[in-house]
């Protein structure tokens, strides 16, 4: 079965510092990976996806993610965090039936 894990429940960074949210995956076959962001009491918003191609994927709001096959990771990154990036971030993997399996989420707090 396809699965993802987000090892950190919370990440705290200062505004202007780099932000990294970690995700590792376990799949049989080629991975199809996604990142979503959720603000309090809101639905999830799609940030970016990896299907094939370049290992560095660029997405919305200045976020990017690096696919690393040898480490089975798909970490989300932003070079300079903003207070408005404070939210919950979810990694997901798509299974052969096109359903998504989500990680437990990481709550990011960016302090001014």
């Amino acid at each position, binding site marked *: 079965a396809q699965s993802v894990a987000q090892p950190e429940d919370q990440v705290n960074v200062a505004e202007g510092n780099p932000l990294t949210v970690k995700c590792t995956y376990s799949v049989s076959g080629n991975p199809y990976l996604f990142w979503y962001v959720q603000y309090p009491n809101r639905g*999830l918003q799609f940030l970016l996806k990896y299907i094939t191609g370049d290992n560095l994927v660029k997405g919305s709001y200045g976020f990017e993610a690096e696919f690393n096959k040898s480490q089975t990771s798909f970490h989300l990154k932003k070079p300079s965090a903003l207070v408005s990036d404070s939210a919950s971030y979810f990694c997901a993997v798509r299974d052969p039936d096109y359903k998504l399996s989500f990680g437990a989420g990481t709550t990011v707090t960016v302090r001014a």
Partner: protein
Amino acid sequence: SQTIHQWPATLVQPVGSPLSLECTVEGTSNPNLYWYRQAAGRGLQLLFYSVGIGQISSEVPQNLSASRPQDRQFILSSKKLLLSDSGFYLCAWSKVRGEQFFGPGTRLTVL
């Protein structure tokens, strides 16, 4: 462009009462549709998904049911709510091989 709507936004219901949550999608045809539940603001559990009218797949056994009476309408129902049904319910749509797009969610509190 495509939009997805959910209503109501919030709902407080007594134990044992019925439930009906509605989700509609605009701007696309023949979408895949999904119902998720999110407990305590973390982790999403897939409840149901549908690849077409009248086609519903259930992911977990529970006292909830889903129906798709029209191409872009997805309904989540229950005949008798339990306390454990409280949570944040999210509807999503996708094209067959595309990413999923989520609605704004419904906050359900069962008392």
